[in-house]
């Protein structure tokens, strides 16, 4: 319950209730003002009516008083007038006697004729009927021969006092009402503005990233709905960090495992090589020497296979870190080829290099990845195209792409089917190459096996760097094109 009172909903309800209360309070205030007004304007306790009793009451009282005048003398009429003047200070009275003379008058301001003819009387009655001032005409006595007395008073005096209060305080009432409405709108606006500001701040805070790329926690200042949202966000951040940490730990474990596995496989391999080398230094028969050479080759192949397997495992699990940057591809390929040149030279390869200008020589690649791709491609040339003793590395620019082309004159690569380790991508590429009409026949297989995983790595890494590649192989040689498609 305590929490509920802190909620935005509760606060907005409070604003609504306050507004309602203010409206009610304003009524109350008006009533108070009115009663003060009545006190100022009324004075007696005839509350709810005007200063005077109702017109009909005055009329009947006046008739009654006139009827009671049996002695229609000036003095008695005068007496009556004075008595009524006491009661109604604003009233004006006069008497027209039986002969039509204006016999008596009290506080009459208008000019009255001294002789009242029948026609004037009729005109007077007509003009006063229902008009202002309020006029009562009553015959004196019971016979109606003593003329009539007239009582008149300004009609304004019959209006209820509230009208007067309105006349005086009306403007203030309207101002008060406007103030209440403006106050309500202002408070509502401030309330929502505060809420909006906090939401915007929250949104901004949610977009801030820590060094690890995850969002940072937010200071929770209030315990309302937004505060709860911030709280939930913080919990989410903690969970995210937790999960990231777990993921990193797993990744670390996996790396460690692979590194250790690699180490454990390579150590005995080194020992095998050491033994082979030692034996190789003895004087051996031709067969013995051949066996040692085969052993040496196997060690090298195993080494490469282990390396590729590790790389492939990491690649498949998306754990091989890609750090792409702008690299001058021609320079990169040249420098990389420089490290391979001695090996090709040793194997008696003719190396032809034509790395001319490309349309766009700046490629976004990870040098480590690209180095590995080229390593695998050159390895394949060394292993599968030994017979051709030729490698050509060229650059090619067309309207749609820039490419690095590696060609050899080997017997083609139709080894993948039997390599034992292969990848759908390389199978697909092999299949595609066949479909595109190369003339490879199953009899043309390179002697060496095991390029499947190497090509799978090439495929994955090039795709990872948004590069295309194409392999064409036939009994006269293989051509691999690594392309950067423009546009």
């Amino acid at each position, binding site marked *: 319950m305590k929490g509920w009172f802190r909620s935005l909903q509760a606060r907005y309800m409070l604003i609504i209730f306050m507004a309602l209360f203010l409206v009610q309070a304003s009524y109350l205030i008006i009533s108070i003002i009115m009663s003060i007004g009545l006190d100022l304007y009324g004075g007696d306790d005839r509350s709810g009516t005007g200063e005077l009793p109702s017109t009909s009451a005055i009329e009947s009282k006046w008739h009654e008083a006139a009827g009671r005048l049996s002695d229609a003398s000036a003095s008695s009429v005068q007496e009556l007038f004075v008595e009524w003047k006491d009661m109604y200070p604003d009233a004006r009275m006069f008497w027209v006697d039986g002969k039509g003379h204006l016999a008596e008058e009290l506080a009459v301001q208008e000019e009255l004729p001294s002789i009242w003819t029948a026609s004037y009387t009729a005109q007077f009655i007509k003009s006063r009927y229902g008009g202002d001032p309020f006029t009562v005409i009553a015959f004196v006595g019971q016979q109606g021969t003593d003329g009539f007395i007239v009582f008149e008073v300004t009609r304004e005096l019959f209006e209820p006092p509230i009208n007067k209060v309105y006349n005086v305080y009306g403007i203030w009432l309207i101002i008060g009402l406007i103030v209440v409405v403006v106050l309500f709108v202002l408070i509502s606006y401030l309330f929502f503005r505060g809420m909006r500001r906090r939401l915007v701040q929250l949104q901004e805070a949610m977009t801030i990233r820590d060094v690890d790329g995850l969002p940072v926690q937010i200071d929770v200042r209030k315990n309302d709905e937004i505060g709860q949202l911030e709280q939930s966000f913080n919990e989410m951040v903690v969970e995210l960090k937790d999960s990231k940490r777990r993921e990193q730990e797993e990744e670390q474990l996996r*790396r460690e495992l*692979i*590194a250790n596995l*690699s*180490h*454990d*496989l*390579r*150590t005995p*391999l*080194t*020992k*095998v*090589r*050491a*033994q082979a*080398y*030692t034996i190789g230094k003895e004087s051996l028969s031709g067969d013995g020497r051949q066996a040692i050479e085969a052993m040496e080759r196997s*060690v*090298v192949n195993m*080494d490469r296979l*282990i*390396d590729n397997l*590790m790389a492939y495992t990491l690649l498949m699990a998306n754990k091989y*870190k890609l750090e792409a940057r702008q690299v001058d591809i021609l*320079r990169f390929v*040249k*420098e990389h*080829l*420089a*490290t391979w*040149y*001695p090996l090709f030279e040793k194997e008696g390869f003719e*190396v*032809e*290099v*034509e*790395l001319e*200008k490309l349309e766009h020589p700046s490629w976004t690649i990870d040098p*480590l990845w690209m180095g590995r791709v080229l390593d695998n491609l050159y390895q394949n040339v060394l292993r599968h195209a030994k017979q051709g003793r030729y490698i050509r*590395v060229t650059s090619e620019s067309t309207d749609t792409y820039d490419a690095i082309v590696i060609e050899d004159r080997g017997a083609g690569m139709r080894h993948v089917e039997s390599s034992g380790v292969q990848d759908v991508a390389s199978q697909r590429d092999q299949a595609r190459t066949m479909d595109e009409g190369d003339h490879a026949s199953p009899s043309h297989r390179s002697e060496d096996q095991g390029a499947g995983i190497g090509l799978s790595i090439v495929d994955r890494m090039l795709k990872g760097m948004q590069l295309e590649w194409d392999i064409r192989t036939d009994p006269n040689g293989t051509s691999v094109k690594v392309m950067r498609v423009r546009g």
Partner: protein
Amino acid sequence: MVHILYVEDEIEIGSWVTRDLTERGYQVTWLTTGEAAEQHVSQADIAVLDVMLPGLDGFSVGKRLKREAPELPILMLSARSAVEDKIEGLGFADDYLTKPFHPDELAARIEVLLRRAQRYEEVLELRHLKIYMKDGRIIDKRDGSEIVLTGKQYYLFQYFLKNLNHILTKEQLYEAVWGETYIEGDKTLMVHIRYLREKIEIDPAQPQIIETIRGIGYRVRR
């Protein structure tokens, strides 16, 4: 005699490498753990370290040795081939060779490191040239005359000698000697190489010392 400090816990590999390097004319101190390596650092010209060692690992040993003797070249020789390991190793070491390696490759890399650190008390013989590595004197063996190189030619040739047997691209050479970015089509380097060849080659038209590797660059090979 060049002294190699070698740390390797695998007995078979250790004895094989020690024997091979000794046969190649090096003096080898082989330790099976890294703890005592620092005691030998003052006599060593180069350190060859395995990574996975019992106790202190090769990286820690290497870092300690580097702290002790910053000039000492260190070659990490490891069965760990992950990029992360290589990067960590090359953070302080001068070279990283993965197992299984060929002893010729190990010997070649040791030689390069020694030459780079100028620890070789070597007189390099290249065809008809005799080069005193420490003072940079070049003698034509045929008549015993000294070949004098001008500033840029000297630096260029020194750079070739430091990277003996390596193919160097035009870009690498230009940037190393001139310290500026190479602009495709710049003839400066070619002109200097022509002058250099005129001084050191018997027949500059058919160079024997500075080979041209077509499409890639140049190489000075033993």
